[in-house]
């Protein structure tokens, strides 16, 4: 475990999470959630939990992003607040 790499990854994860809830465009929000999942996947790979990281990469970054994009087609693309 290299703590500098952990620190950089965690900082980018927090930035992605805050950006995902503050951005106005819902499509960008979904893509930012995918980036967040992928960075968490990197973090888990780096900590040695390879199976968890693989599940996060397929489900969090792959399938759930596709579900969000499919749902955004049927609502307005911009948030109200």
């Amino acid at each position, binding site marked *: *475990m290299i703590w500098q790499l952990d620190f950089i990854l965690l900082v980018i994860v927090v930035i992605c999470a805050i950006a995902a809830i503050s951005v106005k465009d819902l499509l960008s929000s979904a893509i930012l959630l995918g980036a967040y999942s992928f960075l968490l996947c990197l973090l888990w790979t780096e*900590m*040695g939990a390879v*199976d968890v990281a693989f599940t996060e990469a397929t489900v969090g970054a792959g399938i759930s992003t596709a579900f969000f994009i499919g749902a955004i087609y049927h609502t307005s693309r911009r948030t109200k607040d």
Partner: protein
Amino acid sequence: MKVLALIAVLLTTAMLGYATLDMPGWGDPSSPASTHVSPVYIQEAYKKTATPNIVTAVLADYRSYDTLGETVVIFTAGVVCMMLLRKVK
């Protein structure tokens, strides 16, 4: 309303952060998780199941009921999604 939500989130974050101080260190060999059943899995899993990946052996053999429940949950989610959204003509 947004300020209230922010205060709630900050309080929860502080509580969770305080709770993590009680957790054992990363990969600590004397933590309860690595002294109770993990040594048995590491020593016995390959001999008893002939599966080199211990995670798969635990997931699908030792904890097979859990995986069965997980599969049934996914199946139920799919069926409920079909029942709620599908329009039959």
